[in-house]
């Protein structure tokens, strides 16, 4: 039902017949970026970079101009260095069990993403173990249990209210004992401005690395794609306690564009790893920079 590339083609049409970009075109671009939640600072950065490039490089038609724009936006993203990011759902050979810790504020889609990741790693032929370290939110363990059943992978859990560090420890220990390839640990949603909850996360992390030096190998921050500028603050605060290795942006099947992750990726140099596109177990995709840039300009006709 979505009309893809609406604003994108509008930008193209608006340029047709002109030889250089003018204020009208720049205004249109600015609006498109702001309404995709890119934020003012990053939007200004994009406009400046584009104008500098446009002054240097040749562009003869709207297609070439749009290519310049695409490259300009892509240049904000940090280069992908992480081996697992280059080969999605392929684990590096020398780290077993490979431990992934999943963090984020309340309701962004952590537990659902873990279900989807478990499914993908299982499909790729790995032995997957889940750890239910959200012992706080009502029925959080039950929810993850259902996802573990859907993915067909085992789960380590304790009673509600148990110490999440202890569950994380148990999960890693069990993953070692059972020769698992990958352990994925769920954590309770926590707002980044709550110090005691953030400290607890730091503790969970330390417990894991104590049990298995080098672990967690990945710490994924899950962001709700409909969140505005506050996501930047989330990334900074979580980075401070857990050294994030990647971002997951969820709910991009909706009308929100998730443009704030451009600002995060740029300012915090954290790669975007996956995007969530629905509530089904298969609705997770590796992040594809080009199509993400295009989708920033998509307009949803139905709304």
């Amino acid at each position, binding site marked *: 039902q979505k009309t893809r590339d609406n604003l994108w083609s509008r930008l193209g049409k608006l340029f047709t017949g002109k030889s250089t970009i003018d204020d009208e075109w720049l205004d249109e671009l600015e609006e498109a970026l702001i309404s995709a*939640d890119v934020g003012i600072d990053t939007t200004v950065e994009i406009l400046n970079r584009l104008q500098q490039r446009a002054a240097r490089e040749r562009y003869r038609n709207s297609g070439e101009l749009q290519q310049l724009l695409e490259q300009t936006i892509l240049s904000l993203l940090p280069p992908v260095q992480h081996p697992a990011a280059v080969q999605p759902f392929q684990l590096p050979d020398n780290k077993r069990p490979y431990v992934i810790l999943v963090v984020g504020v309340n309701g962004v889609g952590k537990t659902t993403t873990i279900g989807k990741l478990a499914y993908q790693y299982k499909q790729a032929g790995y032995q997957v173990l889940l750890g239910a370290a959200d012992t706080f939110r009502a029925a959080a363990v*039950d929810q993850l249990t259902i996802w573990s059943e859907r993915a067909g992978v085992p789960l380590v859990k304790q009673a509600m209210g148990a110490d999440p560090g202890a569950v994380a420890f148990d999960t890693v220990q069990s993953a070692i004992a059972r020769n698992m390839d990958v352990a994925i640990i769920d954590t309770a949603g926590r707002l980044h*401005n*709550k110090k005691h909850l953030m400290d607890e996360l730091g503790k969970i992390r330390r417990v894991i690395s104590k049990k298995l030096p080098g672990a967690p190998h990945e710490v994924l921050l899950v962001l709700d794609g409909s*969140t505005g500028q506050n996501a930047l*603050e989330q990334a900074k605060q979580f980075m401070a306690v857990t050294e994030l290795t990647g971002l997951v942006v969820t709910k991009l099947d909706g009308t929100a564009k998730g443009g704030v992750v451009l600002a995060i990726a740029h300012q915090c140099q954290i790669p975007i790893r996956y995007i969530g596109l629905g509530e089904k177990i298969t609705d997770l995709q590796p992040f594809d920079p080009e199509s993400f840039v295009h989708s920033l300009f998509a307009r949803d006709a139905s*709304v």
Partner: protein
Amino acid sequence: MFESLSERLESAFKQLKGQGRITEINVASTLKEIRRALVDADVHYKIAKEFTDRVKEKALGAKVLQAVSPGQLMVKLVQDELTALMGGEAASLSLEQKPSVILVVGLQGSGKTTFSGKLAYFIRQKLHKSPLLVAADIYRPAAIEQLKVIGQQIQVPVFSEEGLPAVEIARKAVTEAKNRGYQVVIIDTAGRLAIDEAMMQEVADIKAAVNPEEILFVADAMTGQDAVNTAKAFHDRLAFTGVVLTKMDGDTRGGAALSIKYTIQKPIKFVSAGEKPDTLDVFYPERMAQRILGMGDIVSLVEKA
């Protein structure tokens, strides 16, 4: 972000200082910074523009009294206008029917289930009426269990039924409430996207089946520019009666509140600020206006200027 806003406003206010009257020229940069602050706070960019245009109209030609600086006058104008937009009158729940049915709707993960529990608690503790919670989310894994756990925590009964469509669950729950004398029925629904036609139809069907007295749209205070589209789509379909802002215990400026209020013109009835049952508050327009603008720093700036 706050630092640079303060700096920008400081220089904008300096320009106003020492002038006796607000004019087109001396107000321009101040308005631009305020617009920017609003967009940084996630107010929809078109609404931010309309808002500052309104403020400008009021400000132009306004006489600055001896006692206040033009900067102070501008701040007051902005704050008053924003407070007025956020809704002057205190909005309460309408609970006339027997039983009163409250339908709780919104996007995935916005905080509907948690809010439903808080509302039940509020209705019993503060309004002294007997609530019944209804688990009508048949999709999300363990959604029913989640509501049951919450119900147990606050000792409010939860109606649920395996294997029935959501519409039937809602219908049966209302009948049950009538038979057993519950005064308020709170229906927790599944999270859904406004563009998911089948799911929007489902909630419209629930509305038609139980004729709710209140339909509350639950919105995450951290929502960005899309808040307008989503609220509008839900409202077009359901004509909701009020808005609930959740996760206000975070540090978001909460500009989505203005966007929604401005577009839909329905009162913000509750503010949810925590995961525990007693963290529900009524809405204070003035507080929200100050929060969105980061008024704390602006007011102190004017005092400095």
